């Protein structure tokens, strides 16, 4: 396998990991099962290993120098999806009063959106390199979903204001919701970087 193919393959594996992490986060939050969150941290560490190995491949000469900066940025963006998912999981673990989850279809929707976004990216990643038109179409969908996640976040925070929460629980809940929405932001950033890479040749 060529060094370039190994890099693409590694990024593909990182994207599959990020999809698994998002699915696990969804399951952990909806089932209020904090034990599952440990698995997300393990996945995040696996992603770190892949990021280091990919960066080494790039340093050793994979891709033309002109492309290396953006390819490395793409790797870091994908790693950021994993980091943000892990961050959301860690905040969730710290929340003691999970009452805000009762009847919150909005939080469930954001979790679903994150899974959908990661699925779009990971399932079509190789295809995007081959058919740039498909990437442009996916970009439009990703932007729409990200906007929806952003709107939902503000709506959740408005509702949260009305609740009587203990100080630390309030902070951790706020941070958790922020991190949850940030995942969709990072996926959008990854798509932007991917588009720069694909169009740069």
């Amino acid at each position, binding site marked *: 396998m060529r060094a370039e193919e190994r890099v693409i393959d590694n990024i593909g594996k990182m994207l599959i990991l990020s999809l698994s992490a998002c699915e696990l986060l969804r399951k952990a939050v909806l089932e209020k099962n904090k034990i599952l969150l440990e698995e997300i941290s393990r996945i995040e560490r696996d992603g770190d290993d892949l990021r280091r190995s990919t960066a080494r491949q790039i340093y050793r000469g994979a*891709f033309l120098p002109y492309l290396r900066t953006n390819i490395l940025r793409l790797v870091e963006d994908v790693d950021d999806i994993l980091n943000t998912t892990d961050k959301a999981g860690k905040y969730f673990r710290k929340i003691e009063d999970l009452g805000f989850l009762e009847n919150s279809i909005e939080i469930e929707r954001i979790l679903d959106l994150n899974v959908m976004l990661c699925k779009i990216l990971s399932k079509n990643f190789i295809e995007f*390199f081959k058919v740039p038109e498909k990437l442009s179409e996916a970009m439009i969908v990703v932007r729409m979903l990200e906007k929806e996640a952003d709107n939902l976040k503000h709506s959740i925070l408005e509702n949260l204001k009305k609740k009587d929460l203990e100080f630390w629980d309030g902070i951790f809940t706020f941070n958790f919701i922020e991190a949850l929405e940030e995942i969709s932001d990072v996926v959008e950033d990854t798509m932007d970087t991917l588009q720069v890479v694909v169009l740069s040749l």
Partner: protein
Amino acid sequence: MIEIELISLVAFLLIAFSIGSNDTSNAFGICIGCRIISVRKSIIPLFALVLIGALFQGDRVVKTVGYELVATSVQISAVALIISAVIIVIANIRGLPVSTHQVIVGSLFGSGVAFGTSVSVETLSKIVLSWLLSPFISGFLAILVFLSIEKFLRHYNFLQVEKILKSLLLCSAVVIAYNMGANELATAIAPIARSRDYHSIAFLGAISVSIGAFTLSRRIAETLCKGITTLDPKSGLSAHFGAGLAVYLFTILGMPVSATYSLVGGITAVGLLKGVRTVKFRVLKRIALNWAFAPILAFILSSIASKIYLWI
């Protein structure tokens, strides 16, 4: 007489070493910078291509410079090569870019005039015209290559394009390395071609070029790599290929032209194609001044050295 011949041989080897250390970057520099090939691995193909170039087509440039331009003698060649070697080595140490061709032609002509031997102004005019035309022809070819690449690569995906560009960079490096033997090394051989066996001199020259490439070209290739990152691969490749083809065309015509100046022409043309703002005209002005100054300086210094030699 033997001492003079030996000195001119040493001066020739020094020039060949300098060609290797400086101009290898024109050929394999981008490939080394892009890590398509390592410095160590590039030495053997470089040696082979330079030697093949010098043996197969070097005679055309040797005929123009060594036979038609000046009726050389051992003394004329010795003075011209020593002055050329001194200018090239000092320029290299001080980091000033000079064209080996221009320095050798300027020195040889200056020496020939000072010694009062027969010199051909017509041949000199043709050579100067080649120097003037080569950056423009290189630029024209670079644009053609750029447009063809743009059209051809449209049908391929990202990873295929990357692979094709790398292969084309290697092909382009092969053309330029061949030109190094057929044009650049041949120009350095030209002054001593009458008094020595061409094949053995070409072999010695190719070895000296390879040693120069191995010892000093890594630093230059690294510098080039840093510079190339700001140039997109298609533009860089087009300029490289355009320059390679232009120098090859002039080699067929027997004209000694600089790959570096051709490369400058190629880069400028592709830059202009993308927009006037991308071209740094101040840098171009400095290159043009240097282009005019080097052969004149070589001519003057060589004339003075020859007069001193005759006076002694």
